[in-house]
């Protein structure tokens, strides 16, 4: 399936005919198992969170309805606000680094011959590593005493680098780790987009004597619009809820330097067991994600059909 530009909105009936879908409300029986399973795993838990968020719970039998009090205190909490800004900043940096880098990798990836499967496997490997192991890999690799990366920065580049002590170093370590981990995803998506461009486009460009840059700018880049939108949204969503990797490498520290929203939330929820604030925090967090998700959905359902 190739990504195309969003088509103009059509009337529902015409859309049905174009997609060849039949109207049949009996199809609900087919989706029923999914609805039931997701109701158990998502809806009931979410209702429980709503329940927590409006009460002050001292013990199971001793609780007080407090209305929106927790929402107010969470929204004003400087620690939560700092984590929110930190997470947004992290997501922005992730996108700025991974999208151009991923496109660059896709452009230089081999397109014919035996190199293709080898390249695909090589690039995809980081994506299949458990996230906590990604953390472990970098925890080891970046250590100045036993890790190749940390050792090289200290002894070859001559910088004073230690991610367990310095806040800036910790941030850079988590960022480099994320770039290492997820640039392959952008690269594979962009590569799939590039492969869908018919050869005559390039032959025409060659006849016109277009430079490599002009070919990229005017032929390849426009065709990547669909896949790159998907890549940007996926990377935004996943970096916005990053937890495991920084948890393993830095544990949110030093201080609060890498304490992102999920790290802070799980600290409040499981560490301190503050049901009310954690519930309100969860719902605000969930809401923020929902809004971006809606944009994502609109884009996805209009491209690629």
């Amino acid at each position, binding site marked *: 399936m190739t990504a195309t530009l969003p088509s103009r909105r059509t009337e529902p009936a015409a859309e*049905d005919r174009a997609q060849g879908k039949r109207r049949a409300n009996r199809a609900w029986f087919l989706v029923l198992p999914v609805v039931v399973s*997701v109701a158990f795993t998502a809806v009931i838990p979410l209702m429980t969170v709503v329940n927590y968020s409006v009460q002050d719970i001292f013990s199971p039998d001793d609780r007080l309805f407090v209305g929106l009090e927790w929402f107010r205190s969470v929204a004003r909490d400087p620690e939560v606000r700092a984590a929110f800004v930190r997470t947004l900043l992290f997501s922005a940096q992730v996108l700025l680094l991974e999208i151009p880098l991923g496109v660059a990798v896709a452009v230089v990836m081999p397109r014919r011959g035996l190199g293709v499967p080898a*390249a695909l496997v090589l690039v995809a490997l*980081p994506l299949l590593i458990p*996230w906590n*192991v990604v953390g472990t890999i970098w925890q080891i690799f970046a250590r100045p005493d036993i890790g190749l990366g940390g050792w090289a920065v200290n002894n070859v580049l001559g910088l004073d680098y230690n991610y367990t002590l310095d806040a800036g170093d910790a941030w850079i370590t988590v960022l480099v780790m994320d770039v290492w981990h997820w640039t392959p995803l952008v690269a594979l998506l962009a590569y799939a987009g590039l492969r869908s461009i018919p050869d005559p486009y390039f032959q025409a460009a060659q006849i016109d004597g277009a430079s490599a840059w002009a070919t990229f700018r005017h032929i390849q880049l426009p065709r990547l619009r669909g896949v790159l939108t998907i890549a940007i949204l996926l990377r935004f969503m996943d970096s916005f809820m990053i937890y495991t990797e920084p948890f393993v490498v830095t544990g949110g520290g030093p201080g609060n330097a890498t304490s992102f929203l999920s790290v802070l*939330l799980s600290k409040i929820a499981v560490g301190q067991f503050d049901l009310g604030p954690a519930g309100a925090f969860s719902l605000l967090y969930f809401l923020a*994600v929902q809004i971006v998700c809606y944009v994502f959905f609109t884009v996805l359902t209009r491209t690629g059909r």
Partner: protein
Amino acid sequence: MRRLPWARTVFWLYGITLMLPLLWMFGMSIRPNQDILGSFRLIPERVTFDNYVTFFTDPVWYSSYLNSIVYTSMNAVMSLVIALPAAYAFSRFRFAGDKHLFFWLLTNRMAPPAVFLLPFFQIYQAVGLFDTHLGVAIAHMLFNVPLAVWILEGFMSGIPREIDETAAIDGYSLPRFFVRIFLPMIRSAIGVTLFFCFMFSWVELLIARTITSVNAKPIAATMTRTVSAAGVDWGLLAAAGVLTIVPGAIVIWFVRNYIAKGFSLGRV
């Protein structure tokens, strides 16, 4: 098409950089701990497989590895079975509220797992699913069922609807058509979906750790608790890390052409 002259070199340089941290962890896993903490060396001085031996003889390690395999497999199969009919419905029929439902599924794939920690902890204890393999498998359906529905729908929509109609004319009922004709046609989609469900369940730590304590404790949780009185056992940690990559590394060859599709929820 014309290729940049240095493209090949640049790409393989990137590939080597990508592999460096992995190779370093592997190198660490085959050294004795004294050598790791002793002087810094690029190439291991003494090679030992003691760390792997420890992993496979210490029940804390190998049982949590098995736990992870058990619940991820259960989850992959359960998610697939539930998602198949739903994906077919989304790709073939218009029904009341279909778009809203499809969107709602996506929101669960995108929801931060941290949001569900508290209720999962309490609900799973209340219904007796706490610290069971089934419990983790069900909890991971939160993001894997939507994922499976989206991926399968993407594949199914690529199969022409004329096939359904021809089969109906030939007298096939819907269930019989689905099992006898349709499922064999989407074999690769089923493989890809199973793989991605397995993988996303395998890589998840936060939920799995929260709703387990001993019996179903995942390998990821065991790995985050390696600090003992003697400090971190780096060699063992590295060996465990290498072993958790193995399942993915084995099947990656078979799914190499579908990785972009799987990660983009079937949209590329």
